[in-house]
């Protein structure tokens, strides 16, 4: 059984309350950081840990922190990105629901490291129950002297607030999130300047994902070097993976980075295999924005070596035969799922969520949705398939924020790996309405993967 850093005490009754969390060793990281370390030393530990942003981009957190401008007399802000909206991702909801003090503790440690005296947790508005949980946890922590003025007598002040969003995927993009926090529409800003120079209210700001911030707690407790021992290569530490789709046991799992994908899907310790005894057709490994992979490329790299759950291994092979770690939203499709329908569904999502600022994204996402809809419903033409590729290429890289790329990649990758299924929809406009292409039509049906049991 792998060591749990974030979810170690998740099953302790009452762990969502301050007293129980404290009994289990909670808030030790705050004591250690504030009483024995300087802010720069905290940043140094996080750098040593090799922690990479858990929200999707995978940028080293310590390096991001070290970019923060520190002009004299100007406030600095830490904003936690809890606008979890990437289809397939629900780890932050899980963490905030069950162990909210892990996030609060991480916020205190991280705010101290950055010299922020006011910090915000931007939670998507739909997570109202989690907002209430966090507000309660903050009140408890304040009551115990871990928030407010002169924390633990160290002279450090910190106020922590929860900000609800209004329901917009785009606000997970850090500059859109800052716009939203300022009470505006969530339109991403042109960078530079980066938030580290001019972020919230024009002040230097760091925006970090919930899981990244919570991970600073074990990093400070055990030291960055200890944290870096877990994992593989430049993918250090543990990662929360949200598993969904046609799995026996979907849910949130904390894994050591470097776990073989096959073990994650089939072992009883994790997802327990594909539901209803069916076979795996495809996976989306890191949330809807990353390229979809057929089952064979999910389990093995193009050279036949096993694929691992790590930033490097998941992206091995580039977009030709690889995908991305993303936010760790692992979606599994069984043999009866229709790739065209799912691609259309994701396209509709991006069309709905495009902020409308950049024409390639505003127009392109709607166009792709429309074309995919007609292919799925038996009105497609062969030329539509290349049209989709063409539109996706013209969105990719031509927008202010990565939503354009995120909309283009699922379409391009679905056609790259499942072109025959798109063509079948065009050739069989009646049949495709009530049957799915399945696995049976593949030249080489994907063999039922061998079940490996946990270590």
């Amino acid at each position, binding site marked *: 059984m792998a060591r749990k850093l974030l979810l170690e005490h998740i099953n302790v009754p009452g762990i969502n309350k301050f007293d129980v969390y404290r009994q289990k060793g909670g808030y030790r990281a705050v004591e250690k950081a504030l009483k024995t370390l300087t802010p720069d030393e905290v940043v140094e530990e996080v750098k040593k840990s090799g922690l990479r942003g858990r929200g999707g981009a995978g940028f080293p957190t310590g390096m991001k922190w070290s970019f923060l401008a520190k002009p004299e007399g100007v*406030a600095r802000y830490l904003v936690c990105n809890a606008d*979890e*909206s*990437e*289809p*397939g*991702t*629900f780890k*932050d*909801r899980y963490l905030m629901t069950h162990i909210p003090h892990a996030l609060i503790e991480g916020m205190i440690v991280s705010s101290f490291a950055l010299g922020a005296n*006011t910090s915000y947790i931007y939670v*998507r*508005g*739909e*997570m*109202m*129950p989690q907002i*209430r949980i966090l507000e309660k946890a903050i009140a408890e922590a304040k009551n115990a002297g871990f928030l407010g003025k002169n924390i633990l007598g160290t002279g450090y002040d910190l*106020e922590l*607030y929860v*900000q*609800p*969003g*209004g*329901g*917009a*995927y785009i606000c997970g993009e850090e500059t859109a999130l800052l716009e*939203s*926090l*300022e*009470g*505006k*529409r*969530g339109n991403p800003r042109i960078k530079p300047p980066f938030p580290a120079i001019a972020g919230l*209210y024009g002040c230097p700001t760091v925006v970090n994902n919930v899981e990244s911030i919570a991970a600073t707690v074990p990093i400070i407790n055990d030291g960055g070097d200890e944290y870096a021992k877990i994992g593989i290569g430049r993918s250090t530490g543990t990662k929360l993976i*949200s*598993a*969904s*789709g*046609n799995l026996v046991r*979907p*849910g*949130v799992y904390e894994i050591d980075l470097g776990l073989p994908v096959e073990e994650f899907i089939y072992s009883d310790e994790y997802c327990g295999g594909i539901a209803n005894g069916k076979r795996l057709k495809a996976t*989306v490994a890191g949330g*809807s924005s990353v390229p979809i992979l057929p089952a064979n490329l999910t389990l093995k790299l193009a050279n036949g070596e096993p694929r691992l759950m790590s930033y490097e291994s998941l992206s091995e092979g580039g977009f030709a035969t690889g995908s991305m770690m993303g936010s760790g*939203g692992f*979606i599994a*499709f069984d043999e009866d*799922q229709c790739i065209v*329908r*799912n691609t259309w*569904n*994701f396209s509709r*999502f991006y069309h*709905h*969520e495009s*902020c409308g600022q950049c024409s390639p994204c505003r127009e392109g996402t709607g166009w792709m949705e429309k074309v995919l809809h007609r292919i799925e419903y038996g009105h497609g033409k062969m030329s539509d398939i290349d049209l989709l590729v063409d539109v996706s290429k013209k969105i990719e890289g031509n927008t202010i924020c990565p939503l354009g790329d995120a909309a283009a990649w699922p379409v391009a990758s679905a056609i790259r790996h499942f072109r025959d299924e798109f063509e079948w929809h065009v050739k069989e406009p009646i049949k495709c309405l009530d049957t799915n292409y399945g696995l049976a039509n593949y030249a080489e049906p994907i063999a039922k993967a061998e079940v490996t049991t946990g270590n």
Partner: protein
Amino acid sequence: MLKVEEQQPVEFSSALKEKFDEIISRYPKGKQKSALLPMLHEVQAELGWLSPNAMDKVAAYLDIQSIEVYEVASFYSMYFLKPQGKYMLEVCRTGPCCLVGAEKLMNHIEQNLGVKEGEVTSDGLFSWRGVECLAACGYGPVLQIGPEYTFYENLNEQKVDELIQDLRKK
């Protein structure tokens, strides 16, 4: 829940104003516009939707232009710009939930309630709509009901029927 008609004048209760002031105190001086999104949630929880009069009042309270409120309220999907049923059933319609039967569930809700997506039942109790990913993909299909966004997970047709029946009795 208070029913507010399109042109009906809106007065905020003193309890609501107290809440507004607490929210505004979270931000630096002069940055009170940051309070807009949380305030709109509070107003919608009380009135059931955001009428133009209510939005104008919010603008006046924050000392900003009305258009600054309209553009925000129309951008975000959680704010209702027309009256809804007392219970708005919001069903996740994005990929992972569809893999486990969200589309079938929406058809079932439409049949059970007898109204199309976005419409209100004649008794004013229910409306429903498909919404994009609610970040609960492992527990799908899911739906939520405002204003506290109570969450219902691992749904099937029978569970939804029971839920609707329970809400009717309330």
